[in-house]
Structures are given as C-alpha cells and as structure tokens.
C-alpha cells in the first residue's frame, strides 16, 4: 500500500467513525442497567455436578434402565436369600414328592428327585451370576492391562501383541471354550477360566483403540507440555476418559457370560449334579417339558429376566456415560 492510499483509508475510517458516533444524542445517564448484574452473572445457580453424578441423573431418566435396575436388584436379592426362605436344601431328595406342581409347600414345585425347585432356582441363579461376574472381572483386568500396555508402549511390542490378538479373534470363541472344558472337566472355576481365555480379547481391543485415540489428542499434548508425569497423565486423563467405555463393555459382557454358561450346561458341558446353574435347570426342564412344563418355565423366566435387564441397563449406561455413542 502506498502512503497516499493509506492516508485515504485512514481518512474514510475516521469519517465513518464520526458518522457512527451518537454520543451527542445520548448522554451517559440516559441508560440504566436493568437486568444483567455482574454478581448475578458470575453466581453459580446450580450445584456443581460431577461426571458420574451427571451420568447417574441421565440414567435415571431412562425408564427402561430404571426398571431393569429394580428388577435386577430383586433378582439378585432373591439369589442371595431365596435358598434360605424355606427349610429345603438344593440337594435334598424326596422320591415320594417327585414332580409336584407348584403348591404352598414347594412354591415352584419339585423336580424328578423331589428336590425343591424354588431353592434350586435361586441357588442356580446365584451360581450363574457368580460365574458371569467372575468371568467379567477377569476379562476386565486382563483386557485393560493388555490393551493399555499395547497402546502406551506402542512400536514393536504393540505389533507383536496385536498379531496374537488377530489369531485369537480368528477362532470361533464357543468352539474353543467347548474344547477347553472337555479338557478341564466342568466346574465353577474351570467354566470361568475357559470363558476368560478368549473373553478378554474384546476388552483389550477396545481399550487399545481408545488409548491410541487419546494419545494423539491436544489436551494430552498440552498436559505433557505443562510437564505432567506419566502417572499423572494416566490417573488424570487416560483412566477417566476410558472408564465409561470399560463400564459399558463390562455390562454387555455379563449377559453374554450368563448365556455362555447356560449354553454349555445345555449341551451337557455344565456343572455336575447335584449342583445347579440356570443352564442345568433349563436343560432338566427341557427334558421334562412335555408333562411338567413348570420345570422349564421358571428357570427360563429367570434367565430371560436377567438377560433382558442386563442388556437394557447396558444400553442405558452407554447413553448415560457417553452421549456421543448414543444411537
């Protein structure tokens, strides 16, 4: 820009400013502040809500999730105290009272050995839940460790760890679980172990990709630039930002573990008599279904209740913990 054009430019600007200057029309005292006050603008009108409180508030707005939570609590309480609500034990046989329809003495009837079905169902629910929860927690520990190490260390280590996962993913899970249980002989612990051996892979992949995504984000870079130590990065940024994902994935793992256990029992690879899980009870009920349908109906009802509630709750949690994932 030459000097003359610059002058011209300034001149027009000044002219414009003068044209827009209405100070001569409005004196300072012709205005007064009506609404906005400095202190009210800065005041915090709502109490501070942490991320988990906020998620909880969002969850309680989801009707399906709330109903599921209530039903699940009832089922879990019954699984804990149900077996002690009458005088029978789960393995007490009474051949004179075999195949009794539900009545005031045996609330859910009796099975082919005259065992009290009410006690057996809640005992079975407890075992099924126990296996599912144990498997889920083990999946969580192994998966989170494997996934985060793979992502945080990176490079060759990550490469090798990913190749291992690729091979494991190629194997149909259930087939491998079946083979392992044939080897280990069915029992509460071996069923859990067999499920965990393939189960952790999913969690590891999720955690790895999430940590990878976080690693390249600006706020992590900023935190590093400000001199945050690795442990601080992990504690303050990585864990809070992956926690939602982990919780949601856990909630979906529980019902699939309940299903797998019941499936194994159904094809004859489950717990041995007289122990009962829901799958064992459903299998027995299926065999007796023609004449004693109630033996199938009640355990089937409990497992469907558990599965539906865990799924709905997991859906609700996903929406509540991460609105971006909502669909």
């Amino acid at each position, binding site marked *: 820009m030459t000097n003359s054009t610059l002058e011209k430019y300034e001149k027009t600007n000044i002219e414009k400013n003068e044209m827009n200057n209405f100070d001569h029309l409005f004196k300072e005292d012709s205005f007064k502040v009506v609404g906005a006050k400095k202190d009210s603008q800065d005041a915090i009108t709502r109490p501070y809500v942490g991320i988990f409180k906020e998620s909880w508030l969002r969850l309680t707005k989801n009707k399906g999730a709330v109903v599921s939570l209530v039903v699940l609590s009832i089922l879990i309480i019954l699984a804990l105290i149900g077996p002690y609500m009458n005088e029978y034990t789960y393995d007490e046989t009474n051949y004179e009272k075999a195949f009794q329809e539900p009545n005031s003495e045996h609330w859910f009837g009796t099975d082919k050995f005259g065992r009290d079905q009410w006690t057996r169902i809640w005992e079975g629910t407890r075992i099924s839940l126990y296996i599912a929860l144990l498997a889920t927690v083990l999946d969580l520990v192994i998966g989170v460790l494997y996934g985060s190490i793979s992502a945080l260390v990176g490079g060759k280590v990550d490469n090798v760890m990913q190749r291992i996962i*690729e*091979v494991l993913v190629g*194997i*149909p899970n259930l*087939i491998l679980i079946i083979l392992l249980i044939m*080897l280990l002989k069915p029992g509460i612990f071996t069923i859990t172990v067999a499920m965990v051996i393939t189960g952790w892979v999913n969690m590891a992949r999720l955690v790895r990709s999430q940590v990878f995504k976080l690693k390249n984000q600006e706020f992590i870079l900023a935190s590093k630039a400000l001199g945050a130590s690795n442990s601080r990065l992990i504690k303050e940024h990585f864990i809070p930002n992956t926690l939602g994902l982990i919780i949601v994935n856990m909630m979906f793992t529980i019902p699939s573990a309940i299903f797998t256990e019941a499936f194994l029992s159904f094809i004859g690879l489950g717990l041995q008599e007289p122990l009962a899980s829901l799958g064992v009870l*459903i299998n027995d009920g299926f065999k007796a279904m*023609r004449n004693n349908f109630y033996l199938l109906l009640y355990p089937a009802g409990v497992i469907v209740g558990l599965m*539906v509630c865990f799924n709905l709750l997991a859906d609700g949690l996903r929406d509540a913990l991460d609105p971006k994932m909502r669909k």
Partner: protein
Amino acid sequence: MKKFLAVRIFNILVTLFVIATVTFFLMKLLPGSPFDEEKLADLSDEARMEFYARYGLDQPVYVQYAKYMGNLVQGDLGISYYYKGQKVESLISGRIGPSALLGVQATILGVSIGLILGMIAAFRHNTAWDFFTMFIAVIGVAIPNFVFAALLQYYVGLKWGILPVAFWESYDSSILPTIALSMMVIALIARFMRNEMLEVLQQDYILTARSKGLSQMKVIIRHTLRNSMIPILTILGPIVVSLLTGSLVIENIFGIPGIGSLFVDSIKVNDYTTIMGLTIFYSTFYILTVLVVDLLYGIVDPRIRIAGSKG
C-alpha cells in the same frame, strides 16, 4: 489391494495352523478316549496293537501330529472313533445339507424381516412401531436361543400342534428351527438398520433429494436404503457366529441330523477325530466369511478402497 490380500491370506493360514495344532494336542491331552488302556484290557496284546495301528495310535505323538497335518492339507480329517470306519469328512458332507438349509433359510428370513422392521422404525421414529422394533431387538438378543427354541417347540409343536415337534421328515420340520435360528439375526439387523437409517436420513444429500422433489419412495430406495445397507456387512461376522452357535443347540432340540448335532453328539461320546474335524471346519468357515465380508466391503464402499490403497 494385492498386498492386502496376500497379508490376509497369510494371517488366515497362520490362524488355521494354530487352531489345528492346538486342537490336536488338546485332543491328545483329553482323558476318556475310547482306546484307553483299561478299556481294551480284555483284548490280547496283539489285537490291541492291531487296533492302535488302524488308527495310527501306535506311533509317537509327533509322528501322529505330522501325519495328521499332512492329511489335513489334503482334506483328509481322519477316521471317526465312534462311527466305525467312517471318514470324518464324509460324515460332515453327509450331514451338512440340513444345516445349510436351516442356515440359508434363517439368514433370508432374518435379514428380510430385520430390514423391514428397521426401516419402519427409522421412518416412524419415536412411534409405537419404533418401540415395537426396539422391543424385538432387545428380546431377540436377550432370550437365549435354546430357551426360545424350547418354548416354540412346546407351544407351537406340542400344545397347538400346528407344526411338527421335531425330526427331519418333511419340509415343515424345518420351519420351527428356522424361526428359532433367525430370531437373533432379526434382532441384530433391525437394530443396526434403524440406527444406520436414522443417521442417513439426517444427511444433506437426503435433504437435497427431497428438495429436488423426489417422491418419498424414491428417496428411500435410491438414497436411504442403499447407503444404510453398506454398514450391515460389518455385522455379518457376528451373524454367522450366531448361526453357528445357534445350530449347535437348535439342531439338538429339534432332532435335526445336521453338523451342529453331530458336534454335540461327538462331544458326548468322546469322538475326538470328529470333534477335531468339525472344529477345523467351523473355524475355516468363520475365517473365510470374515475375509469375504472385508473384500465385499471394499467393493461396495469405494471410500474404504481408496483409504486402503493409500495406507
């Protein structure tokens, strides 16, 4: 693309090798083989050795392993321990018909009902239709397939007597198992389709299509449906898995002579060669499906092909 394919095929071969090896040694570790020493105790030593020789059990384990792998490459899965004198591959091919029929029928039924439900739910978002679809989607995933199959068999077969309870006698016998098997597919597809369509409907090109004056039907068929269906390929893997595992119990419940019931039966009688053969068969089938899905995905969605060739 060629490099991608080569890497994938190499990975598949490694995976299959690992699976075959692991299965072989697992089977060797298992107790309760029909040829255990004590079960053949009443045979003379000579007869026992002849028995072992017939099944190749007289050689050291590593020779057995090498032989098994060598035969495997040529498609020879060995002789069944239980069905005397039958080759495992002929057992499988003899029983694959019913399983394939059920699988294909369940896929067709599941995909078409799932697509229709998902579409209706997306277009009637937040109405009774939508809630009905989501209800089906949750129920379909949540109810274990064997519970659903048992209930179907009890009500439709036993109580109302509409369809055959079990066994493989006429075409009618395939209806109930097909429905039981397709439940999961319907649920998976319906939920996925609904979400996918809701997303596509918000895209700018749908607005453009509408503002051009296209009829609702044309918008649906030309733009929405096509673009929503591509991602469905990604859940084909889980669907195949659900069909495979479903067939294990459902064939058993309905007494269908397919490979699912063959697998469960051979577990019950410790027929190790058949278990091994079927494990490898299932794994190969699953792995190849995943490969086909990945390849199809690249063909249907050019964006992925371009991203793939760059990377």
